[in-house]
């Protein structure tokens, strides 16, 4: 569980930046600032040497969404349609890239444990989530089994049918109950002290950096208000 020392910011700091800029971003009306965020986050991702293929794929998948937002404001908007279209088009990518600087540079486990250390995220939440992420593969097998059981009755499920999801949900509920029981049997106690085995160094200057970035952004977005 020991984290090896690595380059880049601590996951908690990235999380704070993501929320601290992401929230005001929803209210700011500036294409230039969106572009600046996109530029800096892309530079950060390059510096972190994330997997190029995955990154491009994620950006590509988001394209229809960004284009959809852009087009709907461009063609059906009122007022300054050009400005509005570019605000909403670039906003999709600004959000996405802000999230990517966190999720593409750290594993789920690193993120959750870091949030536990520095932002007091409860252990129940951390280990419950970790357990469910580990069950993803089994859930895929179950998905196949459910589809097959419907074929056996000549009533194949389609993705738009509620029954299909109902059964997946029932399965997932059962599994999460099984996991909770097993964790309790292994001594996991809600709210109790545990030995902290992971170390997650967070130098004070990173907090300062996060604060500075958020203040700079809010200042620019709500006082300077560029195009």
């Amino acid at each position, binding site marked *: *569980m020991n984290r090896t020392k690595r380059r880049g910011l601590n996951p908690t700091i990235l999380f704070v930046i993501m929320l601290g800029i992401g929230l005001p971003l929803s209210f700011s009306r500036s294409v230039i600032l969106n572009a600046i965020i996109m530029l800096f986050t892309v530079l950060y991702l390059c510096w972190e040497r994330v997997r190029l293929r995955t990154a491009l794929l994620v950006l590509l998948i988001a394209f229809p969404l960004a284009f959809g937002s852009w087009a709907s404001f461009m063609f059906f908007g009122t007022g300054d349609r050009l400005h509005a279209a570019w605000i909403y088009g670039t906003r999709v990518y600004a959000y996405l890239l802000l999230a990517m600087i966190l999720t593409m540079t750290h594993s789920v*486990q690193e993120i959750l444990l870091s949030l536990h250390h520095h932002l007091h995220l409860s252990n129940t939440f951390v*280990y*419950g989530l*970790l*357990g469910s992420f*580990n*069950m993803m*593969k*089994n859930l895929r097998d179950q998905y*196949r*089994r*459910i589809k*097959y*059981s*419907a*074929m*056996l*009755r*000549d*009533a*194949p*499920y389609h993705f738009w049918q509620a*029954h299909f999801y109902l*059964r997946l949900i*029932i399965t997932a509920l059962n*599994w999460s*109950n*099984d*996991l*909770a*029981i*097993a*964790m*309790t*049997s*292994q*001594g*996991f*106690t809600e709210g*109790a*002290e*545990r*030995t*902290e*085995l992971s170390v997650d160094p967070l130098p004070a200057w990173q907090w300062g950096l996060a604060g500075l970035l958020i203040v700079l952004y809010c200042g620019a977005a709500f006082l300077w208000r560029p195009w």
Partner: protein
Amino acid sequence: MTSLSAHQLSFAYDDREIFHRLDFTVPMGEFSLLTGPSGSGKSSLLKLLAGLFPQYGGRVTSGQVSLNGQNAAEIVPFQRATKVAMLFQHPARQFAMRTVNQQIDFALANLQLSAAEIYRRRQWVLGKLALQQFAHRLVTTLSGGEQQRVALACVLAMDSEIILLDEPFANVDINGRKNLLQILKRLQETGKTIFLADHDPTGYCGIASRLFRVDADAKTVRTVPLENLPTEEENLTPVRLSDELLGGRLRWHDLTYGVGERQLVHNSSFTLPAGKIGLLSGKNGAGKSTLFNVLSRQHHFTGQLSFDSVLAQKVPLRKWALKVGQVFQNSTDQFISMTVKQELAISRKHSRQPDYWTPRRIDQCLADLNLSRVVDHVCYRLSGGQQKKLQLLSMLIMAQPVLLLDEPFAGLDLQSIQRVLQLLKMVKKDLQTSILIISHQRYGIVAALDYELRLTGQRLILQGRDSDE
């Protein structure tokens, strides 16, 4: 000395009472086997003893489980775990962490041990259970048997005195089972208490030192003399081979399959006879359920599999599912709608033999199976036995020409078993269905069967003949 016992314990789910004023003490330092049909309450008893129930289900209506004189359910988990811990039926669902090391550390960190002590215990247990080479592996990449070994490693590292195991071999292959049983026996000989629940009592002769059975009718647990433990040979009341096994529609040639690296069956050829009921037998983990998954094309295989001489690869899966039907071991996997009525209506609407499965016949079957009263109930709320019968009936109504049944008698009383067998015999005669059954239980069943196919040494052998066809 630790003690674990139930005093005047009554326990119920909703309105169904499972135990009534049960007095039971776990024999310390022994290897105890708890048997009884599926759904009789074995798992509930284990979870009660582990202090996990009623927190995670059911209701205690009288009495309590005492661990060293204290109510087990009220002891905080991190203290309880050092005395009593449990291994579960689904190995993969008991891990919160990704790797073996992390998982063992997780359990030990719950006990608030120092980091140095956690490291020491982890290294010790990895060595003891020969898990060193798995230390950094993802638990999801391990086999069922290896996963159970990791779960056992957590329990050992926590130094729990009493180890409860709930059907621990249900998803473990034959070698994994043998390996685990040896480890457990060794642990018992060095002072641990092993309390294991298994619906199938075979393979424990010479290992279990105490035998118990859940008596579902009396809602209690009875001590049974060890002599009642079946030896492997005794269990094999042979099926009398009916003389004429004529041709059938499902046929396989040079069929080979395995799980992971391990080959289960090599170059087998056979034609599933029409209008006959066969028993597919073989040891735990030999690959019986996997054969069913191969025949229904849910598992990879090599060789030729054909229906009416058309190769499986040429038939879309959707059509294949209407030729080869499968009754799953786990009933709830089969249900595709909410209520019993809806479930049967879907089968009737899509039946391959709509003229045969008239509403009148279905009503008659419902009455025979004692299901008439529950037609408006939700499938998931039925008892284990009712679910099994509903599952069977709905697949019989679908009337695929080939029907594979995986443990269809599990959890049924003798009377229900006879009713189900009558139904199967009626269908095979009237519709010339090829039926193949996996059932660890032979008592009361064998006489109704026509042949036995035994899976042993990677070969499928028709019993009563010299070699496989």
